[in-house]
C-alpha cells in the first residue's frame, strides 16, 4: 500500500516538473509524435516488401511488430535504467538511494519514470489495428484483458533483463557495453522466432526471453494455436524473470562499493 502511494507521489511530482516547463513539454510531445509517425511509415514501408516468412504472412509480421511496441513502450517508461552504472554507481547517487526507506530498485524506477515513452504504445496500437483489420481478426470480450496482461508480462520480462544487466555494475567497475548490445538483441523479439535457428530460439525463450515481448504473446491474438502455451506463459515468465532479476539486484546492492574518492 505504501509503495502504491509512493508511486503516485513520484508520478505527481514528475507531472508537476514536466508542466513547469510547458514550452519544453509541448516541443517534446510534438517531436515524440513526429518520431512515432516516422516509425510508423518506416514499419509499413519496410514490411511492405516482406514476403511470407516461415509460414507467417506480411500482415501477421506487422501485427507482431505492433504488439512488441506496446510492452516496449511500458518498459521504456518505467525501466529507464540504461545509464544506471554512470548515474548511480560511478557518481555515487546510490548512496542517497540507500539511505531512504524504500526499496532501492523501486526508488530508481520512480526517479527515472519517463511517461513520454508511452506514446510508442499508441503507434503500436495503430499498427495492431491496421494489421489486425487486414487479416480480419475478431476481438473477443476478454481479448483486451489478455492484451493488457500479456503486454505487462512482456514489459516485466524486458525490464528483468535490463535490471540484471544493470546489476553487473555492482560487481565490475569496468565500463560495460552489454547494455547497447542488449537493445539490439531485444529487436529479435519483434520477429517470429521460428525464422531463427534452434540455438537463437532457445536463447530468446529461456535465457534472454525477448520472444515473450513480441512473437509469443502476439501469436495468441493471431490465433496460432501451436504457440498458445507460450502465449499464456508470458505473464508467468515475466514474473519469474523479474523476481530473479530482483534477487540479483539485491545481491548486487550488498556488493556496492560506493563512489570512493
Amino acid at each position, binding site marked *: 500500500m*505504501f509503495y502504491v*502511494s*509512493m508511486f503516485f*507521489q*513520484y508520478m505527481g*511530482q514528475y507531472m*508537476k*516538473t514536466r508542466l513547469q516547463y510547458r514550452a519544453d513539454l509541448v516541443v517534446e510531445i510534438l517531436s515524440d509524435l513526429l518520431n512515432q509517425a516516422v516509425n510508423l511509415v518506416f514499419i509499413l514501408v519496410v514490411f511492405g516488401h516482406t514476403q511470407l516468412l516461415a509460414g507467417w504472412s506480411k500482415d501477421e509480421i506487422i501485427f507482431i511488430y505492433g504488439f512488441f511496441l506496446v510492452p516496449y513502450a511500458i518498459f521504456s517508461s518505467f525501466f529507464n535504467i540504461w545509464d544506471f552504472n554512470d548515474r548511480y554507481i560511478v557518481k*555515487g*547517487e*546510490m*548512496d*542517497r538511494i*540507500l*539511505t*531512504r*526507506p*524504500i*526499496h532501492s530498485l523501486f526508488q530508481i524506477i520512480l*526517479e527515472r519514470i519517463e511517461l513520454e515513452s508511452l506514446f510508442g504504445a499508441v503507434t503500436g496500437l495503430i499498427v495492431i489495428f491496421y494489421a489486425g483489420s487486414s487479416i480480419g481478426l475478431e476481438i473477443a470480450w476478454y481479448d483486451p484483458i489478455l492484451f493488457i496482461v500479456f503486454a505487462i508480462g512482456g514489459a516485466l520480462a524486458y525490464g528483468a533483463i535490463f535490471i540484471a544487466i544493470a546489476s553487473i555494475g555492482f560487481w565490475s567497475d569496468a565500463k560495460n557495453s552489454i547494455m547497447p548490445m542488449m537493445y539490439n538483441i531485444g529487436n529479435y523479439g519483434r520477429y517470429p522466432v521460428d525464422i531463427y535457428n534452434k540455438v537463437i530460439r532457445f536463447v530468446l525463450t529461456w535465457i534472454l526471453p525477448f520472444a515473450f515481448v513480441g512473437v509469443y504473446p502476439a501469436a495468441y491474438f493471431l490465433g496460432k494455436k501451436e504457440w498458445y502455451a507460450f502465449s499464456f506463459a508470458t505473464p508467468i515468465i515475466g514474473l519469474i524473470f523479474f523476481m530473479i532479476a530482483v534477487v540479483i539486484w539485491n545481491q548486487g546492492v*550488498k*556488493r*556496492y*562499493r*560506493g563512489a*570512493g*574518492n
Partner: protein
Amino acid sequence: MSNAIEVKQLRKEFKVFSSRSGLKGAFRDLLTRKYKVVPAVNDINFTVKQGEMVAYIGENGAGKSTTIKMLTGILTPTSGSVRVNGMDPHREREKFARTIGVVFGQRSQLWWDIAVQESFRLLKKVYKVPDEQYNEHMAHIIETLDIGPLLDKPVRKLSLGQRMRCELAAALIHNPPLLFLDEPTIGLDVLVKVKIRQFLKDINQKYNTTILLTTHDLADIEAVCDRVVMLDEGKIIYDGGLQSLKNNWAEEKEIHFQFLEEVRLSQLESLPLLFETSWDYDEKNQTFIAYIKEESDNISQLISAVVSHFKIKDVNILETSIEEIVRNIYEQGISTAVRGV
C-alpha cells in the same frame, strides 16, 4: 540509557586494482587483474550513547566516510558487527532508514531539478510524517536555518551554503533520533558554519538527537561536540574529550606577525614575557612566527607585548589543524593516546 551506536571489530576492505605496464601487461590484466586488499576501516570498536555529540576526525583517507557508510547501511562490512538504533543497518535497511538522518557535504541528498519545498513534500511522504508534526517541526527548522526564501528554488540554483542548510533541514524532516553528517561544513563561509553549529546544538538539546559528524575544522568540534574519536589509517587512535586531546597534543599555537618596520629576530626573542616563546622567521612571506603554549591568557600577553614595542601590519592566530594533532600523537606514541571511554 541505551546506545545509539555499537560497533565491534568493524572492518571494511576494498580491493584496489592496479594495472600492469606495457602491452604484455595489458593482456595479462585481461586474464587476471592484480589487486591489493586495503583495509579502509581496520577492526574498530566504539559505542555512542543516545544524545551524545561525537566528532569523528582524521586525515583524508583515514576511513571516516567508509565508517559512516557502514553505519548508515550504504556499505556492507567485511567483518565485525554494527548495531545502530538497535538494528543491523544493512539487513533491515528500509526500516532502519526511518530512524536516521544523513547529510553528505560533498554530495546532495536532494533532487537536483526540483524546488526545495517539493523535495521536502516528497520526503515527508517517503517518511510518512503526519501533517501536524511536519508543520510544527519544519516551521521551526526552516526558521532557524533561515531557508524560507530558498524554498521555491531548485536545488541546482542554490549556493553551497544555501544548499547545505536545505540538506540539513531535509535530513531532519522525520525528526530522527540519530544524525550522521559527513563534512557538513566543508567549503562554507564562517557565518553559515556558525549558524549550522548553533542549529545542531539546538536540536540536540530539544530532541536529545545523537549526532556523529566528521570535519576538518577544529572549531566545529569545539562548538558542537563533547567527544572526539580520531581515526588514522582505519584504526581509532584517540577516543575521549576534546579538551584532553588539545591539552596533550595541540599544545602549541602559532601566531604570525608582519611588521611595518624593520625588526630583527633577536629583538623579538628579548621581549619581556613570563612564559616560554620560541620565534622563527619565514623569509618567503616576511613573517615572524611565535610558538607558545596555549594556556590562560598567553596569547593576549604575547600580542600586547609585541604591539607595544613594534608597529604591526598583520597578525594571524593559527588554529592547530587536525593533521598537526595526528602528527603530534605519532611523535609521542599512539599507545598513550587511546583511552577507554
